[in-house]
């Protein structure tokens, strides 16, 4: 019962957040909505017993990514809708009717295809008995350190690379005189 409630709640928050991200015209708000959506996803993880995943979701997204985005938003536009030297807004608008139109058409085409597939998938899916939810952390750790050790190591290099790369890219440089 509790699980079902949690699931419903999480699904609502997730989808609601996602939709809000779509329609929100304020970047800052959109970001907060995204946060909500991510929280929802964490809940959805929890519902299927993915406790570690849910925790990671919260820590990394809520604690890391979204905060980073908020910083970026604040760094890139505090001064309102000024026009820059190239004739465009400094902080771009959140879209207009034309873009929404194109986006809608694309989404519809895409949805049609996906829904068609999903129907097939769900039809073929046998009703299985759900395994009981058990703590996954220990098993995950074992799998990570044995079967997926290569991917694990590579991801560590990736993170390192991203760290250095981000630092190098965003560092302001002096204009070269040549």
């Amino acid at each position, binding site marked *: 019962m509790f699980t079902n409630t949690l699931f419903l709640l999480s699904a609502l928050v997730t989808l609601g957040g996602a939709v809000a991200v779509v329609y929100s015209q304020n970047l800052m708000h959109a970001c907060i909505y995204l946060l909500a959506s991510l929280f929802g996803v964490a809940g959805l993880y929890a519902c299927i017993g993915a406790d570690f995943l849910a925790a990671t979701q919260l820590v990394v997204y809520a604690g890391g990514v979204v905060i980073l985005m908020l910083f970026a938003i604040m760094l890139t536009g505090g001064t309102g809708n000024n026009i820059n030297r190239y004739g465009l807004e400094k902080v771009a608008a959140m879209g207009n009717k034309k*873009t929404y139109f*194109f986006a809608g058409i*694309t989404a519809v*085409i*895409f949805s*049609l*295809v*996906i829904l*068609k*597939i999903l129907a*097939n998938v769900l039809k073929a899916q046998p009703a299985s008995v759900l395994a009981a939810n058990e703590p996954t952390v220990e098993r995950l750790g074992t799998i990570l350190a044995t079967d997926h050790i290569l991917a694990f190591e590579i991801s560590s290099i990736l993170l390192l690379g991203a760290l250095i790369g981000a630092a190098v890219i965003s560092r302001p440089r002096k204009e070269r005189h040549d």
Partner: protein
Amino acid sequence: MDYTLSTVAPIVLIPFFAFVLNAFIVKKFTKLAVAISTGAIFVSFLFALRIFMDFMNVYSVGYYIHKTFTWFDLSAGSHVFKVNMGIYIDNMTAVMLLMVTGAATLIHVFSTWYMHDDPRFGRFFVYLSLFTSAMLGLVLSDNLLSVFIFWELMGFCSYSLIGFYYEKEGAGNASMKAFMTTRVGDVFFLLGILALWSVVGNVTFVDIYKAIGAGAFNNLYALGIPLATFAGVSVFLGTMGKSAQVPLQVWLPDAMWGPTPCSALIHAATMVAAGVYLSLRMYPLMELGHMLPFIAVIGGITAFGAATIALVQTDIKAVLAYSTISQLGYMVIGIGVGSYNASFMHLITHAVFKACLFLSAGSVIHSIHCQEMPQMGGLRKKLPYTFFAMLLCCFAIAGVPFFSGFVSKDRILGDALVLALTNANHIYKLVALLGFGGAFLTAFYMFRMLFLTFFGEPRDHHIYDHAHDEHLGWNSNVPLLILSLFTLGLFYSGSFTGQGEVNLFGSKNEWFSTLIHKPDATSLHHFSEYKAEEFGSVDTRDKVQLTPAVYDENHGMSEHVAHEIHQIHHIGAILSIIIAFCGIFLAYSMYIKKSVNPGWWTSTFANWTKALKNKYYFDDLYVGKIIQKGLLPFNDLLSRFDMGFFDKYAIDGWASVNRWAFTISKWFDNTIIDSGMVDGTGASVRMMNVVLRTVQSGKIQMYFIVIVVVLAGYVWTLSF
């Protein structure tokens, strides 16, 4: 006395280590290096003396030491191939060791005085040490391969010492000439080693003797020549190179570019004698190969020819150089006429008096800084000790009785005379004639040198007045006097055991001919009992059972023949005394009394004189004709052929063929393929890009739409 590594090896190794050490320290510690070098050879001398004394104590013909060790071993599986090195000491080696170390010690001592002011004082001793160790190694060798190794090492030292004054162009030429001429002989020597190796399986002296005794050489041929002759001639060519026999004699006079002490040591006393030593060691092979007459003729021509050239030389060292060649010729005659121990004795006596002569000449040169005899004269008063030493040596070399040269040379000439009168082969008559003729000339030119240098009035007063007065000095003229002492015949023809009387004409029971026996066909069977031992093993031979020393001059001859030979020997002895005095008298009347005018001779035989001055045109022939006109242009031609013709046409020609094919295909490629087909394609592509460029808008969202739609389409087609 025990013969172990520690009692024998130092003879070679001490000078060698002195060389190694000096090579590093000589630049900074010149004096120390010189002392080390001289001390090292003196220690060697003590070791050699010890061995000599031991051999004199045993006093047996058959006493020998033969120790070996494995140098390297290639045996693998069924293949067996080992190269052993070792020492072989018999009576001959013991004497030789004493001579080499003794002479080398005195020459080292002399050099400390003679070379003292030379800027390369220390370096000279470095070479000397290497040389003496190589020479001693050669003497101690038990096999031909190690003889060859040390032989070549000496060649290298000789090369370095002749080229000692390397800033002089002539020294460079002379050193190269010396090395190359001896190298001709060496190459043949190596061939002889290979030939012997193929028969015997190794090249140990004793094993070669055994093989000869067992008849292993019978019916073997190499290149259609009997193998014994083939190997014998090859080895003898080595001797001819090293001992400067005609026609390979050209290098020795030029070798005088080196400092005088090195001429004394290398080009008079030791290295050049090594060639004769080798031939003596290989005497059974020469005998088996029927080449004794050939050897005798070569020796005779050399002895006489070199003596004639010496007549017209004015450079004091050149006279000595030619006299060395001539004396080496006598030793070779000795081998050729079967006078084995006299030949070896002449090697020893010659080494002593020639070393002394060279050192005396060095003393003269050092004193007046000039080598030309016409500018000397009257130096007797300035250089009394040198004069005394040189006088004794001249007596010895001229063959005056009671002196060493007489003892040895007389015996060689006696044996030559025996063969000339009794042997069916008439060539020996020529050999005897050349031998006696050479003896006359020797006496003449040696005293000519002596008279021109020390007697008469000073011809160049400037030089005379600047000559240093001689004082007795331990390292200047004492070595000369010691050496000159050993020109007395007594030392060689005496008896050490008291068994026989001291016989100045050299016949019975004297130690030299008692101990040193010819390993001829009749005595080779002894060697089947000879056995080599590993170094470090216990000496198992019982000295008591050794053959007692008995001088057996007339072995296997009838009473009548022996008597006849004895008679001829006496005739020969008297003849050589007369000839020697004639020579001395002629020199006396020409240069002291001046009753005979040398100018008359030179003008009367002008063509001959010219030939002699030009050394019989050997140099012109070798260098001028064969090398300059033959070899070098041929090489040039060959090199041009290689690069200019062979490489250019035969190899790069392929490239031209390719280029031709390439030109055709290029035309085809350019006109048909490229212009027609390829460029056509290019034009159509250019048309297309006008259209396609619009797609590349750079708008990411546009791309994204396309991606999503295409993906959707793709998935659609997959799933239905």
